[in-house]
Each structure stands twice: as C-alpha cells, then as structure tokens.
C-alpha cells in the first residue's frame, strides 16, 4: 500500500514538472498570438506588399503611409555592419581563450567577456550618445555623430560575448586526439587550429554567429539612442537610420490605442519576431547537426 502511494506521488510529480516545462513554449506561442492579433489589423488599411516594401514611413501624417522598407533596411544595415566587426572579433577571442591562452590567463580573460555581456544596453546607448557620437563628429567631420556606424559599433560589442562564448564551447568540444594527431604529423599549432580545429567546430561556430546576429537585430536601446532615427534607406556609413526596434520603442507612446499606427507597430513586431525565430531555427538545426557529428566522431 505504502509503496503504491509513493509511486502515485512520483507519477503525479512527474506530470506536474512536465506541465511546468511547457510554460516556456506556451509563452512563445502567446507572444506570437498577441503580436498577430494586434498586428494583422494593419492589413485592413494597407496591403502586405505596401507595408513590407513601401519606402515611406509617415505614420502620423494626415494621410499616413506605413511602408517599413526603410526600417527593414536600417535593421539589415546595422546587423550586417555590426557582424562584420563582431564576428571576427568574437571568433578570434574564442580561439585565443580556448587554444592559445594558458589556463590562468583564460580565467582572467573570461570574466571580462562575461561582464561585457552583462553591461546594460541602455548604458552602452548612453556611451554611444554622449561619448562616441561627439567623438565621431569631431574625427570624421560628419554633421551628426549618431548614425549607422555608431550604432553598428556599439551593437558589435554587445554581440561579441554571445559569439565568443558559444564559439569557445564549440572549440572546446573538438576532441583532443584530433589536435594531437595533427601536431604529431608536424603541423604547427596555427595550422592545427585552421585546418583541424576550426573545420571540426564549424557548425558550432556558425550557430554562434547566427545567435550573435540575432542579438544585434533585436537589440533595442542602442539603436533607439544612437542610430539617428531617420526613416531612410542609408547611402553612407554616416547616415542616420531607424531600425525596426527603434521605431516601435519611440513611437508606441504617441500611437493612440488600437489606431492604425498602433497596429502597424505591432506588425513591425511580427516582422522582428519572425526574423529572430528564423535565425533561431537555423541555429537550432546547425547545433543539432554539430552535436550529432560530435557523437558520431
């Protein structure tokens, strides 16, 4: 009798944990659901094509226009430009920590990366706005210091820790025997890193890059404070831009509840959500492939 009661408890506890474990995925579904519920009504006012590919974003005019192409272009530009900086920087730092630095040096360097990851985005935004913006203005002699380049650089340093720590894990999980075999054949340490370790860790590093880019595309405060805010397709590094998160963050307060503008901002949220979900899906597929390869090897 006693044993069966214990087993019954055990069973119900397991079911309880299972139900709780579903909270995360339920939240994700709810986020999607509410974005679509509040965002789709914008299509009553404008067609999907005009919304996504319209090049004019004048949401508050008497005859408002809701084309988010400039916002998408802004997001794409800051994400790409920041990746050009953060990807090499993140991967090289990961190689340094995992392959070159001694154990003690690594133990000192790693907290630096972790603290960099924990810097609140609003503080980085403040730095870009107050310190780096004026610096850019002076050095490059440009009219405004808050622009595409400034935002990309600030975003890059927010993405570096993500890229670095995930790449480092991938490099660490490459079996030692592979390195030893390569070194024993007379390859230098550098040749071993480039020809053996990095190819073996490639899909793990790809995951890191994608998650880093996903972080950059979704980051809000930095692009809100230092991207410049002009809803135009940029033509130069020093043009101001208005990425999608910045538009949502700065306009929601002035958009009347459930007006077309309000729905349009939610619809931008859908675009962002779908983008990051795709990034994550790709990262997930790559990570699983990496794991399988590791298990197989």
């Amino acid at each position: 009798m006693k044993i069966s009661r214990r087993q019954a408890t055990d069973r119900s506890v397991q079911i309880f944990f299972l139900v709780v474990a579903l909270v995360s995925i339920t939240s994700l579904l709810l986020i999607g659901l509410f974005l679509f519920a509040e965002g789709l009504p914008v299509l009553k006012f404008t067609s999907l094509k005009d919304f996504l590919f319209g090049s004019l974003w004048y949401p508050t005019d008497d005859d408002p226009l809701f084309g988010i192409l400039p916002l998408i272009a802004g997001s794409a530009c800051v994400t790409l430009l920041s990746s050009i900086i953060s990807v090499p920087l993140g991967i090289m730092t990961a190689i340094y920590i995992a392959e070159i630095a001694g154990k003690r040096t690594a133990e000192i360097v790693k907290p630096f990366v972790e603290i960099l990851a924990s810097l609140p985005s609003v503080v980085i935004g403040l730095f870009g706005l107050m310190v780096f913006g004026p610096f850019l203005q002076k050095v490059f002699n440009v009219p405004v210091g808050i622009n595409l380049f400034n935002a990309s650089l600030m975003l890059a340093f927010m993405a570096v820790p993500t890229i670095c720590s995930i790449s480092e894990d991938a490099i660490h999980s490459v079996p030692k025997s592979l390195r030893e075999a390569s070194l024993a054949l007379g390859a230098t340490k550098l040749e071993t890193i480039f020809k053996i370790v990095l190819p073996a860790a490639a899909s793990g590093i790809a995951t890191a890059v994608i998650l880093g880019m996903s972080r950059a595309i979704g980051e809000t405060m930095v692009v809100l404070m230092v991207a410049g805010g002009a809803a135009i397709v940029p033509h130069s590094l020093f043009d101001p831009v208005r990425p999608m998160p910045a538009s949502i963050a700065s306009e929601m307060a002035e958009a009347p509840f459930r007006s077309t503008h309000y729905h349009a901002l939610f619809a931008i949220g859908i675009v962002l959500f779908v983008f990051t979900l795709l990034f994550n899906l790709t990262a997930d597929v790559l990570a699983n492939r990496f794991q399988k390869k590791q298990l197989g090897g």
Partner: protein
Amino acid sequence: MGDNTVMKQQQTSQIAKRLKRRQMLQGLFFNLFRLATLINAAALLIVGYFVISRGAGSISWDFLTQPPSDSMTKGGIMPCIIGTFYLAAGALLFAMPIGVATAVYLHEYARRGRFLRMIRFGINSLAGVPSIVFGLFGLAFFCTVLNFGVSLLAGALTLGVMTLPVIIGATEEALKAVPDTYREASLGLGATKWQTIYRVVIPAAIPEILTGAILGLGRAAGETAPILFTAAVFFTPVLPTSLFDEVMALPYHIYALATEGRNIAVTGPLQYGTALVLIVLVCGMNLFAIIIRARLRRKLQE
C-alpha cells in the same frame, strides 16, 4: 657524392627556412588573436572609465536616498532604485519556480526525443525574442487583456517571462554538476525519483541554482525595452504602494534623461551617476555570481 651532400644541405636549409616562415606566421596570427581579446577588454574598460569618471562625482548619500527635484535637474534617484528592485525581484519571483521546475524536468525526467527537442527549441527561441517584442507582448497581454494597466505587476511579469531562459539554463548547469553517484546511491537505498530529487539532487545543486538566480536578477534589472510600455514612467511623485502602481526604474531613467532632458549640462552628471549605480548593481551581481560559481565548481571537482 659531394653534390649529394650539398643538395641535402640545401634541402635541410630550405625546410628550416619554411619552418621559420611557418612559425613566424603562427606568431603573427597569435598576436592578432591576442589583439582581438585586448580590444574587447579595452572596450569594457573604456565604457567603464567614462561612466565612473563622469558619474562618481554625483554619487552621494543624498543622490541615493532622495527623489528627483526641480523637474529632474536636481535631487536623487531613490525611487528608481526601489522601482528597479521591485521589478527585478518580482520577475524573479515568477521565473524562479517555473525555471527551476522546467530545468528539473529537462535534466531529470525527460528522455531524448522529439518532444524534448521541441521544448528546448521553445526555450532557445524565447531566449532569442527581442526585448522590445517582450514589451509589445506585455502591453497586449498583461496591460490590456489582463487589465493590469501600466504597472509594477505587468512589468515584473514581462521581465519574468524574459528571464525564464536564463534561470532554466543556469539551473540545468547546476543539475549537471551533481555527480550521478549521488542519484544512484539514493535510488539504491529505495528512495523514489522524486525523493531523490528533492532530498539529494536539489540540495546539492542549490548554491549554483542561487547563482543562476543572481544572474537572472541582474538581467531583469538592466533591461529597458520590456518595461517601456508596461511599467516605467519618467516621473511619479510617490513610491509604489501596490502592484498596480507605475514605477520609476534606473534603466528607463537613464534613457529618459538622455533623450528628453533638455539641459544636458545640468542633467549630464545625473545620467552618468544613474548609469554608474546601474552598472555597479548589474555588473556587481554578475561578477559575484561568476566568482561564486567558479569556487563551487572547484569544490565539486575536488
């Protein structure tokens, strides 16, 4: 014969030359990698330097304990500190039980398979959702549908959902670090799985789980975008007395001062002062968690 020796000598010297070039190349690249690492450290130090050097002057007892006055040009940031504390603590109150239970399920109960992959994908995707999208979700769900309005409760819940993946990840790492022999010993003595989990596994993992909680607290305290539309206001003369009050918060205060404040010469020091308080809070919590975790790991390894 003589020719042969000369040729051999030439070959060896060529190989030696090539080896030298290979080693030089290695030195060059290693220095490049070192430089990349230094750039990151420098970035952190530069941001830290500016915030500390410009903010330290405005830190005083009054700054930490007084509300703002004279339309935000004087006074302190006490309501923001309290608001941030409430928001982060509320987020943790929500995320901690759910996060720990989820991690226990994932690590102790779930079997490999499609279902587990689906749950993991959900958690990873939730971790990747942009913070502003959490803000939209909070506005549409907590503020509007559940009718909480712009309030402490709505903000804390929004931050809580966002913190969930952090807690789950940290707790899973904590559970992983508990040796399997602990579980086997308990099960071998006839304990059920649940008894093993709450009497053996969780007590052994609790210090590291709490470290994860600190990380989550830091994350929630530093975020701005999720509370933009759900909880934060630029100024409110009273401290929150109920869950349905609006609050001031440190990160939002920095943003608002930086973008709405007209007189930068006057509000500048206040911004840096607030930023310094926020950095000390958030990075301090993180550093604390990192140090504790490293110590715990070393202990477990011994």
